[in-house]
Structure formats: structure tokens, C-alpha cells
């Protein structure tokens, strides 16, 4: 697919709408020639060129900007004059159109408006350029190595093949406009003010000093034209500062968190390095906290879902007894009264497993939450035991697990094989 085959507005190298640049890409001609031709055509046809330009601008699809915005800045210095001239010419063309269609009040307006447009164009290009050129305005070049604040999306940096930019990306070291920045700004300012004065002069305000309203209006328009670009740049600077502040705040937050949690735990682990079990417990707790933090859980809010309540119970038992418990859950539902009872029974089952099989490796909790019922399995790799042989006075399993489940409409089953471990299965129907 050759992108050049189709006529498009070009995002690269566009001065106004990118129409001329697009035509240049399509015909493989320097866009500058197209622009000159378009300007001449506009004058010759009495504004018709502007109509065609506007139509093309509206109808043509746009190729996105692919060149580094930084490069555009480097072109800025040279282009600013062209922009100024372009604004003037476009305005002139528009005035021609208005005149043709009869929407006209006075020929006296033409030159002030055209001059003001050219000056505004210059000022706009000057001040909406790189914002860091405020102090050492060197022609809008800014700091070469620093990308502009708004060129943060990576897509804009990817040079695309066949986009037909007439200028090689990235390598525009010549800076013809260097040092002319202030003059350009002053020239733009002079143009706008001059246009205002000319307008007032033509309208005879200076002769009949009484027309204060027209004077005030002119001053306001001039001020607006001059100040708007400055205002835009100020806004952009503020935005960048705010982004910077947010970034540094986030950095401070991460640092504080790491200090409070990870570094403390590491120090603690060094102190306890002769007790592998405690080290392992500390490490697992820290890991869990860090994961919660990374996934955005605050850890302080009460658990509201059954799955997270089961996982929290496993973490709690692990913390209290220093035995690793791996929890896996499938599905989820809101935590209700029955769910809470199930979590309590699960906690008891895990505590039981820790007590009798804590030395035999990881204890596993598996919770499966489906529409009809919830099942929880707690499995250890201990010695196993015979439930019948557990004396009557050892109430742990009977009361807190079997009894609690029965009381809440569920049931529990204990499977134990000598030498292979024990599994407690808890089933609770959900209503």
C-alpha cells in the first residue's frame, strides 16, 4: 500500500491546514512551490483559491503528524515569517470572498485587517512555540535535547515510512531564525498596533476625538490579539508545572511507602537471620503487602467479597503462626452472613492444619464460589489423623468447624489419610 497515491492533508510540514503540503506529497513537489502557486491563484481568481483551499481543508482526510514535534520547532524560526505572511494572505483572500458575495462595508478595512492578521500570526507562532524559550528567547528553538511538554505520546515520535515528508526527520541543525526571535515578536506587535492605528486613522477617530467607543474597541481587539498567545503559553506552562508537581509527589509517595514497609522489613530480616522460619514469614507478609499496594488495595478497608475475605483469613493465619498458606479462589460473591460463617470455619480449619501439620510444608486453601454453593478446601501434608479417635474434650474441629457449618446450613467433611495429610472440605449453599 502506497500512502502517497491518495491525496491527503499532511500533518507533517503543514503551515496552515496541511493542504498544500499534502498536494506536494502527492505530486512529489516541494510544498513551497504549491503554496506560492496557491497564493498567486488566489489573487488571480479574486478569492476563488481560498474557497478551494477551504473546501479541500474540509474534505480531505488527514495523515497524522508523524514527525517529531521537536523538528517542527526547529523549523519554527524560518516558518514564523511564512506563517505571518500566510495569515495575512488568507485574510486578504477571505476579504475578497466577502466582497465578491456582497458582504461588504468598506474598502478602508482591508489593510488594517490584513496587517493585524499577519501580525497576530507572527505573534501566535512566536509565543505558542516552546514555552522554555521565555528567558533566553533564541528564535523559538528552545533547548534542542528537550522534547516539548506535550509531545509525550510515543506515537508522535515514530517516523513512518512513506509519509513523504520532504524534510529528513531529526536532522535539522541549521537554525536560520536564531537570534531573530525578539525582533520577530516586536515586528508582529508593531504590525498589530500599526493596524489598529491605521484603522483608527482611516475611520477618522484622530480628527473627531469624540468617538471613544470605537477607540476603546480597537484597543481591546489589539490587546486581545497581542495577549492571546501569551495567555495560551502561560496556560501550557502552568499545565506542565502541575504535571511536574504531580510526578514528584508520586515519587515521594513511593519512596515513603518503600521506606515504611520494604526497608523496615529488610532490616528486621537481617536481625532475625538466624531464624529461617521468621525470615520466611516476614518475607511473605511483605510480599503480600507489596502486591496489595501495587494492585491498589489499601488493606485497611473491611473485606466485602467472599473471595477476598477467604484470602485475608489465610494471610491472617499465616501471619499469626508463621506457616505459609497458599490461597487460590475461583469466582466471587458479596460477603453475607453465611459467607462470614464460612470464612470463620475456614480460618479455624487453617489454624487446625497449622497446629497439626505446620512443619510439613505449605498449607493450601482452595475456595470455589459458584452460583449455587461455595466450597472451601483446606489441605495439609501432615501425618493425618482419625476423627473418631479425637477425644470428646478436644472441641476445636467438632465445634468450630463442623458445628459452625451445620448451624449456618452448610456441612463439613474431614478426610485424613495417615502419612498423606488431611483435607477439610466445607460446603455452604448460597441463597
Amino acid at each position, binding site marked *: 500500500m502506497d500512502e502517497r497515491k491518495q491525496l491527503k492533508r499532511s500533518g507533517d510540514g503543514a503551515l496552515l491546514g496541511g493542504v498544500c503540503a499534502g498536494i506536494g506529497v502527492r505530486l512529489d513537489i516541494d510544498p513551497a512551490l504549491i503554496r506560492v502557486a496557491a497564493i498567486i491563484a488566489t489573487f488571480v481568481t479574486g478569492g476563488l483559491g481560498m474557497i478551494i483551499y477551504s473546501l479541500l481543508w474540509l474534505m480531505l482526510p488527514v495523515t497524522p503528524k508523524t514527525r517529531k514535534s521537536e523538528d517542527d520547532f526547529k523549523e519554527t524560526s524560518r516558518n514564523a515569517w511564512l506563517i505571518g505572511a500566510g495569515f495575512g494572505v488568507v485574510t486578504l483572500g477571505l476579504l475578497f470572498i466577502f466582497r465578491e458575495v456582497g458582504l461588504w462595508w468598506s474598502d478602508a478595512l482591508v489593510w488594517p485587517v490584513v496587517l493585524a492578521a499577519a501580525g497576530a500570526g507572527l505573534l501566535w507562532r512566536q509565543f505558542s512555540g516552546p514555552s522554555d524559550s521565555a528567558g533566553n528567547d533564541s528564535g523559538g528553538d528552545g533547548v534542542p535535547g528537550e522534547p516539548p511538554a506535550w509531545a509525550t505520546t510515543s506515537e508522535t515520535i515514530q517516523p513512518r515510512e512513506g509519509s513523504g515528508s520532504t524534510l529528513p526527520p531529526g536532522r535539522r541543525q541549521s537554525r536560520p531564525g536564531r537570534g531573530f526571535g525578539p525582533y520577530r515578536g516586536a515586528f508582529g506587535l508593531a504590525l498589530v498596533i500599526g493596524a489598529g492605528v491605521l484603522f483608527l486613522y482611516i475611520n477618522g477617530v484622530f480628527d473627531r476625538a469624540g468617538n471613544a467607543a470605537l477607540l476603546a474597541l480597537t484597543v481591546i481587539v489589539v490587546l486581545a490579539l497581542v495577549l492571546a498567545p501569551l495567555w495560551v503559553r502561560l496556560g501550557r506552562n502552568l499545565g506542565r508545572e502541575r504535571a511536574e508537581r504531580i510526578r514528584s509527589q508520586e515519587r515521594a509517595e513511593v519512596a515513603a511507602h518503600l521506606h515504611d514497609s520494604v526497608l523496615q522489613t529488610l532490616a528486621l530480616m537481617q536481625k532475625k537471620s538466624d531464624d529461617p522460619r521468621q525470615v520466611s514469614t516476614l518475607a511473605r507478609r511483605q510480599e503480600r503487602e507489596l*502486591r496489595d499496594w501495587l494492585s491498589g488495595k489499601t488493606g485497611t478497608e473491611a473485606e466485602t467479597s467472599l473471595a477476598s475475605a477467604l484470602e485475608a483469613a489465610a494471610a491472617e493465619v499465616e501471619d499469626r503462626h508463621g506457616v*505459609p498458606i*497458599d490461597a*487460590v*479462589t*475461583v*469466582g466471587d460473591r458479596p460477603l453475607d452472613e453465611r459467607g462470614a460463617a464460612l470464612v470463620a470455619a475456614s480460618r479455624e480449619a487453617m489454624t487446625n492444619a497449622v497446629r497439626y501439620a505446620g512443619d510439613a*510444608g*505449605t498449607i*493450601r486453601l*482452595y475456595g*470455589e464460589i*459458584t452460583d449455587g454453593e461455595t466450597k472451601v*478446601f483446606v*489441605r495439609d501434608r501432615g501425618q493425618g489423623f482419625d476423627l473418631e479417635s479425637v477425644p470428646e474434650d478436644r472441641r476445636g474441629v467438632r465445634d468450630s468447624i463442623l458445628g459452625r457449618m451445620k448451624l449456618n446450613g452448610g456441612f463439613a467433611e474431614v478426610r485424613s489419610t495417615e502419612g*498423606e495429610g488431611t*483435607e477439610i472440605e466445607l460446603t455452604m449453599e448460597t441463597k
Partner: protein
Amino acid sequence: MSQTRVAIVDDHAIFRAGVRSELESGVEVVGEASTVREAIALVQKVRPDVVLLDVHMPDGGGQEVIRQTLESHPDTRFLALSVSDAPEDVVAIVRSGARGYVTKTISGPELIDAIERVSQGDAVFSPQLAGFVLDAFSGKDEDPVDSELDQLTPREQEVLRLIARGYLYKEIARRLGISIKTVEAHASSVLRKLQLSTRHELSRWAAERDLID
């Protein structure tokens, strides 16, 4: 019987050393690599039976290694090993061709067992991975393209549930009254579905991972 030849790919030297010392009693460690590029060169040079693969590496991660070597080295199997429990990581690496996924907290003997299993072409599911698969295949897919690939059979679900509960293959076989070979066949079948199914949950997880890369 010759020992299984294993390569360890992880960007943390300390972790590689730890795994190596744990493995040396059971398998032969034939090489280590710390980047994707090194890993690809290592696979081409020493042709290991099994590559232990870290999911996250600075220059692309385990997926990239699999993508670039699986076709030219069909006999090499990949076992993903990661600290991450995030479903999108697990699903993405398995879908790109890993024969299994275990977390870094796995014990030495369990890891050796998993490597042996993978080297024989079987699938290895950690309890966590079994949980993810059950989760992903539970519920109704609104748009099942291939019903065989998009559903687990009741037997496969049973096997996965037991894996999630911490049962070993031989314990599962005994409990269900089937042979270990049959358990392995179910696991492999689930792995195939995990890799080929177009279920939304799986596609979405894999896509999310691709976006991050």
C-alpha cells in the same frame, strides 16, 4: 537414563544461582541467560530439553524468547517461572507456547518434578494456574466460536479442581480411580484449550499483556 538438560533464563543472577543449586541434584543445568537475546542464542547453541523462563525481563520477556525459538526448536519445551500471579501474565505466556507455569515460591523437588514432566511433553499447572483456568472457563461465553475448545469437560474440571486443592498427579489418579497417564492426558488437553481457545476472558487477558509490552 540421561538427565534432563535445563537452561535457566532470568535477569536476576542471584535467583539463577539459587535455582541452579536447587536443581543440580536432579537435572543437568546446561546454561544460563539473563536477556532475551542471550536466551535465544543459548537455545540455538546448547539445545536444552527444557528452558526455565522468567516472564518479565527488561528486553521483552519470556514470550519473546518462545516466539523466536519455538518454531526452529520444536523439541525444546518451555516452563514459565515467575513471581507474578497476575492472570494476564500467566495466560499470555502459556498461550505463546509454554508447557506450564509455576511460581517462584515452588520448592526444589517440586520444580524438578515439573521440569521432568514438561520434558516428557506433559503440562504443568500450579494450583494458581489451575484456579485461573477454572475461572476463565467458568460461566457462559457469550460467543463461543468453537464449543469444543471453549468448554472444559466435567472430568477436566475435576482434575483442575484437585490440582488447585494441592493434589499431586498420582493422588488425583488414585482419587478419581484413573491412571496417572489419563490425568496427564486431561492436563495436556486443558493446556491445549488454554492455548487455542478464543474465549473472551483468555483473549482479553492476552491482549492486555500485549498492550503493556
